[in-house]
């Protein structure tokens, strides 16, 4: 319990820094941009109260916004993700429910569960974010395509990050 008071703030800061300093500068071919920072919301323990997830998501989005000059854009998308999270967890729940102290990551939940959880969440978040950014439906297909392309890159990065920690945990 006490450990999580250190690890989660640390995760928060690390993910925001990686997002702002590294990933925002990648810009593959000008329009694909991975948003790894949502991993913070995804990694929160399953029994975290949903209001707390939402408050944390709001702060997370605002911190990213502060550096990209898009006040409110990432915040609204992160809040949307926090809103969807309980629904996704319920949708993917095992038959006899979740155990206590479970964290939705690869090593605890297994690869199939993790892939579906992360994919649904990432695609929802990116669609919301990209449509908020253009703020019109007239170029639906182009926006949809950009959201999907970025989702693929975000998912790729999430798996790389997850595998990176997977090895460390296994060695312990």
């Amino acid at each position: 319990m006490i450990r999580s008071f250190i690890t989660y703030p640390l995760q928060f800061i690390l993910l925001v820094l990686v997002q702002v300093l590294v990933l925002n500068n990648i810009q593959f071919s000008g329009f694909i941009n991975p948003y790894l920072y949502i991993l913070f919301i995804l990694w929160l323990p399953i029994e975290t109260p949903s209001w707390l997830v939402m408050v944390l998501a709001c702060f997370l989005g605002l911190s990213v916004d502060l550096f990209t000059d898009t006040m409110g854009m990432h915040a609204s998308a992160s809040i949307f993700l926090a809103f969807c999270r309980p629904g996704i967890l319920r949708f993917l729940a095992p038959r006899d429910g979740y155990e206590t102290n479970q964290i939705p990551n690869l090593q605890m939940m297994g690869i199939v569960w993790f892939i579906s959880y992360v994919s649904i969440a990432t695609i929802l978040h990116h669609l919301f974010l990209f449509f908020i950014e253009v703020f019109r439906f007239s170029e639906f297909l182009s926006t949809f395509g950009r959201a999907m392309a970025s989702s693929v890159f975000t998912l790729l990065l999430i798996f790389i990050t997850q595998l990176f920690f997977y090895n460390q945990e296994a060695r312990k």
Partner: protein
Amino acid sequence: MRNLISFINKYSFFFLFLLFEVFAFYLLFRNNNFQRVSFFNSTNAISGSFYESYSELTDYINLKEVNDALAAENERLRSTQINSFQRLFGENIMVKDTLFKRRFRFAKAKIINNSINKQNNYITLNIGSSNGIESGMGVIGPSGVVGVVKNVSENYASVLSVLHRSAKVSAKLKNTQYFGSLQWDGKNYKEGILKDIPNHVHLTEGDTVVTSGFSATFPEGISIATIQKFVKPEGENFYDIKVKFVNDFKNISQVYVVKNSYKLEQVLLEEQSLKEDD
């Protein structure tokens, strides 16, 4: 009343979501409303100084390209200097030149934050009102137009990049002098659109598009882009022209802010004429 409370209780999570979203959208709209001098903004002191130290670190990576661009610019400027012209007549004549008066001055600035991947891109410069920068001044790079200064704080300036959905640059074709307006369609950071060129004009791919000098923001004849592709849409009077920007917005770091000494005079005069119309 009890029903209302139980209703709110039942959907409390949804209401919490709405509350948070309203807050986020309030921020979003307030910033989209061209009111960007707000508390949170990258021109503010915290992230401004943060970005400055960050860009000091990353500048080394681009040093070679920047040096090359600056050297090329020096070469061009040197070739226009007086000592690169040969005197044709031997006499020493002193001419006090009253034909020319300085109209534009340039201030050198460094980009400390830049983006190309959004629909509305902004650039942050390391100079601000203490260096005489004002909102509305033009910004040009080593090879062409970059944007227009939007907001200024004491030490930083936020520039509306050409890569902004509502950016419009008054442009003309260098060889035929027909003018139109140059915009960005939000797709590729290398390409823009030139509008309002009538379709009787003869165009060729590779024609240069330069600033028209109408708006008093930029001097006349600064290059912006070259024509990449053009089509005549049927039943319309204007071309659809796709242009390629001469600046690589992904890789610029040194820019110049253009100060026009006569801007106020021109703007006031134009406004007065418009007012008399009404």
